[in-house]
């Protein structure tokens, strides 16, 4: 606040509307920025060794640096699946009808489940004696043992169940925000439904898709409960948040934990930058309005 306002004109100080943001800014500085800087400094003050020894340790210990790859391998496919399913479903439900309202509500319900209930439900449902195995056996589709829990697949499935409603809601709101006149104009010019989507809708929702990808990716990237409960936390699904948690609350090495948290944030921001940058590469031009 101080930094920014000191650069602006003096009359700003007497504008009450400018002061209305003050509580929020103070809160963010005290609870977000300060702890973050504190953590960043703490990560360079390891319990033993030189300034960088936490980071050296992270990148030279196999079960630490490998967590980056493990997390990306879980979060990227899960986010892609969510977005790729959500786009056609949202596109189909773009018109405002009673049917849309009901379908949307049903599709959003999995948001209420929470990762823990999904984990518990999947352990029961996909378990060796669960309904899923019994149905497949009764229908003679597949008789072998089902391995959808305590491994990689289990965590991806749970990320799709918990992440899909959110991706769907975001994309639905982007698609319904597009002026319906545009696809109608395309239809008048003889475009098939697919071409209406390809040439009228898709370029317009691309920025929204990039945003939805980033916001969904954050949720998948910080996967913690399902990786512990549904995966194999010592092996295939040892994600980076587990490493951070262990450092902080099992080894009480807050310095190392802060270092892991900073690395985690850096990887996440790297993905966001790549996605938002790629958006600019693919499409340049007006994203709103009716010219086109």
């Amino acid at each position, binding site marked *: 606040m101080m930094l920014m306002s000191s650069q602006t004109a003096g009359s700003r100080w007497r504008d009450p509307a400018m002061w209305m943001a003050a509580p*929020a800014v103070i*809160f963010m500085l005290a609870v977000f920025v300060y702890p973050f800087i504190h953590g960043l400094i703490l990560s360079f003050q390891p319990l033993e060794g030189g300034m960088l020894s936490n980071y050296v340790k992270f990148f030279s210990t196999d079960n630490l640096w490998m967590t980056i790859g493990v997390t990306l391998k879980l979060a990227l496919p899960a986010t892609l699946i969510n977005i790729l399913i959500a786009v056609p479903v949202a596109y189909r439900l773009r018109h405002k009808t009673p049917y849309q309202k009901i379908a949307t509500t049903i599709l*959003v319900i999995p948001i209420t489940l929470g990762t823990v209930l999904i984990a518990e439900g999947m352990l029961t449902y996909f378990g060796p004696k669960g309904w899923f195995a019994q149905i497949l056996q009764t229908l003679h589709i597949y008789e072998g043992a089902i391995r959808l829990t305590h491994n990689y697949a289990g965590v991806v499935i749970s990320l799709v169940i918990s992440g899909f409603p959110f991706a769907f809601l975001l994309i639905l709101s982007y698609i319904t925000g597009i002026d319906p006149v545009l696809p109608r104009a395309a239809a008048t010019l003889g475009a098939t439904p697919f071409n209406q989507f390809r040439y009228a809708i898709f370029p317009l929702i691309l920025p929204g898709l990039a945003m939805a990808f980033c916001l969904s990716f954050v949720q998948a990237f910080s996967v913690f409960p399902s990786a512990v409960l549904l995966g194999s936390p010592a092996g295939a699904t040892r994600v980076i948040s587990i490493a951070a948690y262990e450092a902080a609350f099992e080894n009480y090495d807050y310095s190392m934990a802060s270092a892991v948290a900073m690395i985690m944030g850096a990887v996440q921001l790297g993905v966001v930058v790549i996605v938002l940058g790629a958006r600019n590469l693919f499409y340049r031009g007006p994203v709103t309005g009716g010219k086109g």
Partner: protein
Amino acid sequence: MNQATTTTSPMMTSQSISRQPAPKRRTHWASRAWSGLVVGLMTFFLINVGLMIASVATNSVAKRWLGTWLPNGWTLEWYSAAWQEFQLGDVLLVTIQVVLSVVALSILIGVPAAYTLARRNFRGKKLLTGLFLLPLMIPPITYGIPLATLMYELHLAGTLPGVIIANLLPALPFVILVMTPFIEQIDPNLESAARVFGARTFTMFRHVLVPLLAPGILAASLLVLVRTIAMFELTFLTAGADTQTLVVALYYSVFAAGVRASQSIDAMAMVYMIVTLIWLLIAMRFVSPTQLVSRVKEHPQN
């Protein structure tokens, strides 16, 4: 040509045909097949999720359920067992206190800030918007661990205010981001009119803006409410033994499974789901899900 198009995928068909004016019927066939596929996929997804919920619900009222289609006896005692074992009464009380405080504080602090962002242009506005966007763009664990570390140093961790502050961190930017477009679409002339009649900023806010913003405030608070009930990571990192919310208590009960009957864990999971579901359904009554990000376009202004 005809042979070739009918055997390719629906997308290919519509694309290759688009140049030719005639074959209307095939377009219909293609888009029908496509929407059938979409509906089918969704039905498969929903049936499996539904059965998954149903198996948790069934287990929570089962006497014993081992490898059969249905359990061999029904009982409700797991709910009372869960209530006592996990001190659900206390946990629910903490959850309500945390959630209501987070909703109230995020609205009180967030709406005025959203007003500044919507109505004023100033140097550093982009920086400020970025500051509010950042907590939504990085994983909660990343800022949760430094925050929790600091809270342990200040002896704030494990207390109710500590849990509330931690949960307010993602809620406040969320309110600001939802409310800014809401405020932007309100006609600024209304405010000017109020000023012409001598209203000061506070009076104008109280008598002109708040009534107009009521639907948006309701929407934002319900969404924050649902999100806060489900917020696991930050509560997990900052809560102590007697300040656990429902999600965290549920996690510990599954994590420490083996000591406890799976039925009583499932009973607790059902309580959690029903609590969240009620609020979500209320939210969906008042908020059109399509308002989440984009501007409200239902009452055309231009």
